[in-house]
């Protein structure tokens, strides 16, 4: 029983410690299973302090490397400083120009308007009616409109520009190694320094969902509390034996001063004092419904053979004296009691 309790406590303690370590390690990257773990990069897409100047620098770099044609570079010249009207004017696609002008004529620019326009841009791109330069200019014009009304979607428009630039790079620089790479990028593939000044995001697709062991959120404090309780319980269990030995010695040390049951018969008193001593030595207490022999058998299992033999003599003498009405057995009880006391004192 005691062994089982210790094993259970050790098990509980181990699990708690493991959980604590796991919680401490994984507290920061706790995520929902099945979703990519690179959410931080995606979040940074919207959080990076990209501005139009950065985009312009990137355009210049691409021009220098020949990714952008002369005409495209010319159209995108002074990209950061062009106004809405200039941007619209430089766009070749008339429909796109009209759409932007219609947008500008609206009194307010709602998120729905921006979303509709973005979808419109995507549809033009899909039908190959939109050149990269026009796309960038359209986005610049839209950004100008959004900035004017301090719309929170400015950063989203800027990141769309970054995506457009990335697509230009991919489409036109087949000889060049891809600049925008995800975490899987090999060390041999060195990125071009074109966008080093621009903190470009990793626009990789979400990785395939992975099954990961996910634990319910348990506060670290709770786990520490459980671990402390288990430790205390274990300490108490282990110390019980030591304390038991200590108290046993303490009890046997005071054998001469044990409380004498008031029976009025020195022989019977000697027997009950013997029971007290045996209980102290063996740690076995006599139950009320237990017979003298049952107690003898139970206590003997924990006594040394010499002490058990002495206590056996005392018990049998007690039975003869108490139930057999043999007065001479009384002396045997006393004699046995003296021997038992000596053994007990010697063992303490």
């Amino acid at each position, binding site marked *: 029983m005691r062994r089982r309790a210790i094993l259970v406590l050790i098990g509980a303690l181990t699990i708690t410690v493991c959980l604590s370590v796991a919680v401490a390690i994984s507290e920061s990257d706790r995520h929902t299973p099945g979703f990519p773990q690179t959410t931080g990069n995606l979040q940074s897409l919207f959080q990076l302090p990209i501005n139009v100047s950065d985009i312009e620098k990137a355009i210049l770099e691409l021009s220098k490397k020949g990714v952008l044609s002369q005409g495209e570079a010319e159209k995108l010249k002074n990209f950061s400083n062009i106004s809405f009207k200039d941007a619209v004017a430089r766009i070749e696609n008339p429909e796109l120009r009209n759409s932007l002008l219609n947008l500008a004529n609206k009194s307010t620019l709602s998120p729905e308007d921006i979303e509709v326009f973005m979808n419109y841009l995507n549809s033009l791109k899909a039908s190959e009616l939109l050149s990269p330069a026009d796309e960038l200019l359209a986005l610049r014009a839209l950004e100008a409109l959004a900035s004017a009304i301090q719309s929170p979607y400015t950063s989203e428009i800027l990141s769309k520009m970054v995506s457009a630039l990335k697509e230009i790079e991919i489409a036109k620089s087949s000889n060049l190694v891809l600049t925008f790479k995800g975490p899987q990028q090999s060390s041999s593939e060195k990125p071009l320094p074109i966008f080093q000044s621009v903190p470009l995001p990793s626009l990789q697709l979400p990785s395939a969902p992975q099954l990961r062991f996910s634990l319910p959120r348990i506060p670290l404090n709770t786990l520490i509390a459980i671990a402390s309780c288990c430790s205390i319980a274990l300490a108490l269990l282990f110390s019980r034996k030591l304390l038991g030995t200590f108290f046993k010695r303490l009890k046997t040390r005071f054998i001469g001063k044990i409380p004498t*049951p008031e*029976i009025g*018969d020195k022989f*019977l*008193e000697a*027997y*009950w004092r013997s029971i007290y001593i045996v209980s102290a030595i063996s740690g076995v207490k006599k139950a*009320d*419904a*237990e*017979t*003298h*022999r*049952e107690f003898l058998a139970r206590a003997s299992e924990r006594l040394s053979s010499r002490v058990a033999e002495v206590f056996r003599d005392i018990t049998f003498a007690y*039975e*003869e004296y*108490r*139930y*057999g*009405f043999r007065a001479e057995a009384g002396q045997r009880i006393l004699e046995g009691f003296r021997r038992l006391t000596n053994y007990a004192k010697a063992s303490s």
Partner: protein
Amino acid sequence: MLVVMGVFDVVKRELIDRVVLIEKERELKLMSSALLSRGHVLMEGVPGVAKTYTSKALAKLLGLSFKRVQMTPDLLPSDIIGYYVFDQRSGGFVLRKGPIFANILLVDEINRASPRTQSALLEAMQERQVTIEGEVFKLEEPFMVIATQNPIEMEGVFPLPEAQLDRFLIKVVTGYTTTKGLIEIMKRADEIEEAIESLKPIVTREEVLEEFKRVRSVKVDDSIYSYIASIVEETRRHPAVRLGASPRAAIALVKMAKAWAYTSGRDYVIPDDVKAVAIPVLMHRIIVKPELELQGVTAEKVVEEVLSRVPVPKP
């Protein structure tokens, strides 16, 4: 301590130590104690657990007259106690004594007999006498009925009424042996049969009667009487019990405790003696509530629980 070679010592030496009966020491000690208490024994066990062999071996060893009756539904009371027949030579009726006129009567499968025949045993068991045609005949001492019954038979049996069950001093439930014991039985089956058949009486009837007196003189302290009274009363208070132990049960417990102490070599009763015989003495006298019986509560368990609750005499 007693140094007299008692009935049980002889039985143990001849039957247990010489491996005539295997793993039957407890049953034999209980039966010997019952005999010395002038009581009757009801042996319960499934077929083939040596109920009849044990009884037969005990009777043979004690040099007492032994009769056996196989109970059947058509058996008549006169088949057991006897009857008068007309003797043409003498021109009068002569008594033809039934098997009950024996020291030890083995009634095999008592629950197969009709209630009328079972009740014929009542007077003999309690009064130690039989009445035939209005004439009373005293049965010779010692007189002991050892009845066996099979607990699993449900059809063609007549369960013993409570009044008759109470007449039995003890009920001995005998079960299967251990695997080791079973192997020993298989190896020595023929030898065992021969050994039982060739058993010779070792204890005479007079010696048995002398032991009756010794058992009667076994000392019982007042605290033991109080202990027995507490046990008996506790069976009546037990929540699972419909009918607790009667005063006759208390008397039986005292008698058996004395005999048990004697067969253990003492002339005084200790609480261990009471505990040792409490279950065989009380289990067939206690009726458990039917609803709890269905849940597996048995009279044996009730007595065990009572014994674990009632404090032994102190100091």
